[in-house]
């Protein structure tokens, strides 16, 4: 049932799967929010900054008041405040959405670093109690699987529940229809009596609240501390996940699991002395699978790509057979999720179709 579970302490065991779920959460939350925002036509590059704001302000409030609940609320409120700025720029002022998002990131990085230096700079390491885990009664006692799936915190459950919720919202409700219309053909939505402005505001605020919640998750659930720039590029991975998931909730979930899995893998590999044979096995298997896929799909550039993946598969098998003690730099593993995201973008974008009016401001009377 669980692949590699019987290999034991290798990099792909049950605790890898557990940490995959935990590390998928801070990518999945902003990605689902961003999915809604992009379907409504607003690309929000400021996710990273909103996550950081959520992380810092939840940490600060929880530390100052001693209440985790107030911390969560403060974090989400901070994210919403940045969401208001983003909406004012992108929807009301019709400024360039991408540059607006970059600006929001820089403000958030500067603001959280400044406040952290001023408030906590002289205090040494401040560590808070973390949000407790909720064992789901009954389900959590299933051997192996129970601990893996049903012994987590509320934020993680919410992140994974948000996927079916978003799918229901987008495809089964009137709101969802309005959101998709606002992103595909706002003039038509406007004619039909939908307020494109309001739909876009709501979507951007949803995305910023969910991004902030991901920051709360990092600060109050997984670590209990705040570090400057602790989000470490996860907001950008969420943007990639939306594209890789082809603007569909299920696709986004799959993309986030892959990126989260890579993140979990890099943490485990960076801590190890040598690269274990399973890694070579997985690399070889992936490359071989890709080669087969190319043969079946008959793509234009398949000769080069086929040769490349066949070579990778072969060298993987050779390395697996000889199982040498190769120590690769930690930094390579740390860059792994980003490299994977780049490869994914290079392979996936050409075939995906984005919402037609993504990044375009809607001006009434010019549609």
């Amino acid at each position: 049932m669980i692949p590699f579970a019987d290999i034991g302490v290798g990099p792909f065991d049950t605790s890898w799967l557990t940490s995959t779920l935990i590390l998928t959460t801070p990518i999945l939350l902003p990605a689902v929010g961003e999915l809604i925002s992009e379907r409504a036509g607003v690309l929000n590059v400021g996710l990273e900054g909103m996550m950081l704001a959520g992380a810092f302000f939840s940490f600060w409030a929880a530390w100052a008041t001693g209440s985790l609940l107030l911390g969560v609320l403060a974090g989400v409120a901070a994210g919403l405040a940045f969401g208001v700025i983003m909406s004012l720029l992108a929807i009301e002022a019709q400024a360039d959405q991408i540059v607006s998002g970059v600006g929001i990131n820089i403000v958030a990085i500067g603001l959280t670093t400044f406040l952290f230096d001023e408030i906590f700079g002289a205090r040494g390491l401040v560590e808070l109690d973390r949000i407790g885990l909720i064992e789901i009664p009954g389900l959590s006692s299933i051997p192996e699987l129970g601990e893996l799936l049903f012994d987590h915190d509320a934020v993680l459950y919410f992140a994974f529940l948000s996927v079916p919720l978003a799918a229901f919202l987008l495809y089964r409700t009137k709101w969802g229809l309005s959101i998709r219309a606002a992103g595909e053909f706002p003039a038509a939505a406007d004619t039909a009596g939908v307020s494109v402005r309001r739909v876009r505001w709501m979507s951007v605020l949803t995305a910023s609240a969910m991004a902030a919640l991901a920051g709360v998750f990092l600060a109050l659930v997984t670590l209990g501390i705040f570090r400057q720039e602790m989000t470490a590029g996860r907001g950008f991975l969420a943007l990639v996940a939306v594209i890789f998931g082809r603007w569909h909730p299920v696709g986004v979930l799959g993309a986030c699991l892959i990126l989260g899995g890579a993140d979990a893998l890099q943490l485990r590999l960076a801590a190890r002395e040598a690269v274990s044979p399973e890694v070579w096995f997985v690399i070889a298997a992936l490359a071989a699978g890709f080669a087969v896929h190319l043969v079946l799909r008959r793509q234009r550039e398949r000769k080069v790509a086929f040769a490349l993946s066949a070579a990778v598969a072969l060298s993987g098998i050779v390395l697996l057979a000889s199982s040498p003690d190769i120590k690769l730099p930690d930094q390579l593993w740390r860059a792994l999720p980003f490299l994977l995201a780049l490869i994914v973008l290079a392979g996936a974008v050409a075939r995906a179709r984005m919402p037609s009016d993504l990044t375009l401001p809607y001006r009434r009377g010019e549609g």
Partner: protein
Amino acid sequence: MIGNLHARLARISLEFGLSVAVAVAALAIGFIFIAASGASFGEAAEAFVEGGFGTRRNFAGTLSKMVPLVLVALGWIVVFRASRFHVGFQGQILIGGLLVAIVALEVSLPTVVHLPLAILAGVVGGVLWAGIVAWLWAARGVNEILSTLLLNLVAIQVISWVVRGPLQQPETPLPQTSPLQESSRWPDLLVDTSLKLDLLLIPFVVIAIGLLLARTVFGFRVRLVGDNSNAARFAGVSPERTGVYAILLSGALAGLAGSSLLLAGDTPGMTDGFDGGYGFQGIAVALLARNSPWGVIPAALLFATLRQAGGVMEATVGVSSAVVDVTQGIVIVLVLAATSILYFRARATEAPRAPIGRTEQAEAT
């Protein structure tokens, strides 16, 4: 003709006024942060002026910080004109700097050859890293903002590895390379200060990019592609080719900035994070300059002062220098808001003109 000139002057002064207003507002907000952190306002202001211009050494520090800011800002302007704006300057600075460090450490030559060679290495590094972005965009349709955000993160890891691995100074635990050879470094412009001859790059590159964009066929193509890529394609100008050249040129400028940071920098070797956030600050500079190559110089002077004075303020008054980052982000947000005000104004004044024109035409016939 005179009417046109008047309109142009009015527009330029309006844009200039807006930039000044944005700068003043951002500085005011920055000082609110300083006041909120408990430092006395007068003391902070004094430390700011003293830190930026007060002594020969501080003023030299301000000027030397202008160089990478101007170069990155020009890189942004080139890609902005082509509507291919990316945010990969940080990664391009880092990888450019990596090649600079290799040439500066591993090769021994007289300065006349060594310095130009090291600078060239930086440019090549920037172009190579930007080349990935250009290829991903032109051949695979990958949004350049996304790819550059990711490539920045990859470049950070590359440098982190290099300064702890292959290029680490032997027998030290610190993440840094051995001191770069003297023969590869920029000579002093002002003795006993951090001001090096690379300051002369500023007028040279500003004029070169200004002329390139305004007076050459390439500049015309860039603008054509940036304004309307379909029209450009119809006119026989390939948006892909022009976009790729624009991205590569911006990478070259960022790589040049990386070479200056190392070859005219304060630290003897290459350290982790030697990019110092210039890759993003340069964007704020360009936006404040309203994407004009000539406006970059005053805007860069402002930001260089902020950086230099911010560092001094941290040391003397004890205010976190992150306040500079906040201010720079606020500049971006305010510039965007101000641009929209300009846009709406232009539309408001244009709108009633149409019926007037029609009456004139009716009278003529």
